[in-house]
């Protein structure tokens, strides 16, 4: 398959592996931020192709995994209101809230629909003018512009029954927070699709102020190995900087139109991350002039104080401090069929990835 096969060529992967082994001397820890990267590393067995002194740890880049328990509980509370249709991307439907999940609420009679694009939610709103349609907005700079575009479209077409519950987040603050917290990281394998929107400058301070290497990477095995090689070259030569490996998609300035739409619709706010707590200016709130589409402004619901599941160490896993195998629940009480924490639900959650590729 074009654009895939050429980036999965075994010879190429092995030659990068050889080169890495010949130049790598220092002990280094690299964090792959994105869940898609974690998946690719395990799926293609890349750990076994790296020298033993290079360690990869997984980061907080799975949107489902980092959405707070409070967000899930709020969505659940909306789903129980009369005349409400909840629209959501697939994975979220199985995330356990404090007491139940959207999947179970659907079985209880709530109208919860899986959609593939936020524009489908707009269509549902248009077709059901007597209902209130809530879209659960999750994800980073990759999915947020789509939500923003849908809100602008709803405003343009005057669709009064379309609302967004935003848990959208931005990437750089959480990466900085992990470094400030003292997590030992020498460099980041940064998410390619985020930078396709934002450009590369968002990581400049990580390199200039924190002395970390940042390589913006694609998602195929050749991309990943190439990114590790680029980071190793930076760190071995003592010249950490921001570089783009994913050049076929990422441009230095990113996508200006998407950036403008994001800025028109959202503003930064302090936001809660599952297991990581509140991180300043890390979330996206709908601007006041568009508050007619903001579910938080429109719906008045009582959401009981959210509780994290007992024994679940998602927070430490999202920080890269522990791996799923360190968790007492992993593959015993917590499995994809019956997940305890969000990291086991999403196909790109660290726990689900470890479960799928366990040996």
């Amino acid at each position, binding site marked *: *398959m074009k654009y*895939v096969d050429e980036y*999965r060529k*075994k010879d190429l*992967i092995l030659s990068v592996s050889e080169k890495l082994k010949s130049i790598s001397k220092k002990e280094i820890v690299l964090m792959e931020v994105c869940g*898609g990267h974690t998946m690719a590393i*395990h*799926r*293609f*067995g*890349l750990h*076994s*192709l790296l020298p033993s002194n290079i360690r990869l740890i997984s980061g907080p880049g799975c*949107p*489902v995994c980092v959405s707070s328990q409070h967000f899930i509980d709020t969505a659940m509370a909306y789903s129980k209101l009369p005349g409400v249709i909840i629209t959501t*991307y*697939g*994975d*979220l*439907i*199985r995330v356990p809230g404090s007491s139940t999940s959207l*999947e*179970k609420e*659907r*079985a*209880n009679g709530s109208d919860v629909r*899986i959609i*593939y694009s936020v524009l489908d939610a707009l269509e549902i709103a248009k077709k059901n003018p007597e209902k209130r349609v809530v879209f659960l907005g*999750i*994800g*980073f700079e*990759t*999915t947020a512009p789509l939500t923003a575009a849908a809100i602008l479209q709803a405003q343009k077409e005057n669709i009064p029954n379309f609302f967004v519950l935003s848990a959208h987040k931005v990437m750089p603050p959480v990466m900085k927070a992990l470094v400030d917290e003292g997590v030992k990281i020498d460099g980041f394998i940064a998410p390619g*699709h985020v930078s396709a929107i934002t450009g590369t400058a968002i990581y400049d301070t990580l390199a200039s102020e924190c002395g970390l290497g940042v390589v913006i990477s694609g998602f195929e*095995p050749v991309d990943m190995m190439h990114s590790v090689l680029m980071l190793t070259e930076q760190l071995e030569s003592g010249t950490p900087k921001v570089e783009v490996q994913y050049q076929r998609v990422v441009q230095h300035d990113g996508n200006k139109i998407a950036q403008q739409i994001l800025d028109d619709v959202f503003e930064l706010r302090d936001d809660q991350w599952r297991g990581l707590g509140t991180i300043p200016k890390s979330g996206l709130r709908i601007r006041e002039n568009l508050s007619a589409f903001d579910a938080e402004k429109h719906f008045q619901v009582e959401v009981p104080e959210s509780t994290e599941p007992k024994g679940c160490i998602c927070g430490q896993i999202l920080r890269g401090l522990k791996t799923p195998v360190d968790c007492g629940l992993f593959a015993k009480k917590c*499995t*994809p*069929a*019956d997940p305890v924490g969000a990291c086991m639900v*999403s*196909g*790109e959650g660290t726990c689900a990835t470890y479960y*799928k*590729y*366990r*040996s």
Partner: protein
Amino acid sequence: MKNREDKILLGHGSGGRMMHDLIENLFLKHFSNTILDEQTDAAILNVGSKEIAFTTDSFVIDPLFFPGGNIGKLAVCGTVNDLAVSGAEPLYISVSMIIEEGFPMKDLEIIVESLATEAKKAGVLIVTGDTKVVNKGKCDKLFINTAGIGRVKQENRLVSKALDIQPGDVIIINGTIGDHGMAVMNARESFNFRTSVESDCASLNHMIREVLDQSSVKFMRDPTRGGVATVLNELVDKIQLGIELDESILPVTSGVKAMCELLGFDPLHIANEGKVLMVASEQEGNRILEILKKNELGRKSAIIGHVVADHPGKVVLKNETGGRRIVDSLSGDQLPRIC
């Protein structure tokens, strides 16, 4: 172990782990008998001095029409194939319809014609049936149940029992995987993927008969809901050996591969409706491959893996780059990824 949920979720019907648990913990608990406990695609019954195979299946597919078929064709193929993989020669089927008030007569006629055409093709007679009409909103357009009876050939009666499977035996499939599930999904979800993915929906009984008459098969099953992964997991559970699959030789069309890449699905979990998995010794395997490839429905047949003594009870997939992963049964509904 009891069922964890207090209500039925959609995942309970997806053919994967949740459904398996429901069958084990509820249906078998109450219905258990020596015939049912075999849990084969068709029950083998003694009637006088003869043995017959008996099976049933319900069809609730949405949309009713999809590239490569419709609910009528599917309702025949599904039951015919369940009989055929049990080593039986399908003879008679029943067709019961639950129709929603207001359903267009012309659509019903197209579906009925498809039922008739496919039954003729498969060489089975539709000999009994039932019709119910329910109020609008009480069912989704049209549901069909078919049941079927087949004659069991003495020499094939054990083919679904997975006896005498040894390390080194090969796993064969008669063509590309995942076509049905992805064709239906593409039609249902209006993705507008410009792809030629078509359902593989077909009656396999004639092709299977050719194989059974000319070679020795140790196990056969059609990988429908839950896909190849679920059938092979049930097999390794039973035989307490392992299975190793090789990703580089899995037959998957580029359309299915691309859809799976985009949506984050595993083709091994996607439903097929015109495929049969067979296990045979290596020598017989090559012979079976030759027979299959001569048949229209088996042109793209391939040996996709083999039985191993390592990792008993587990199906492992190795890919070209050296990665290995456990292939689990589907654990609930297949959900698309977010980004």
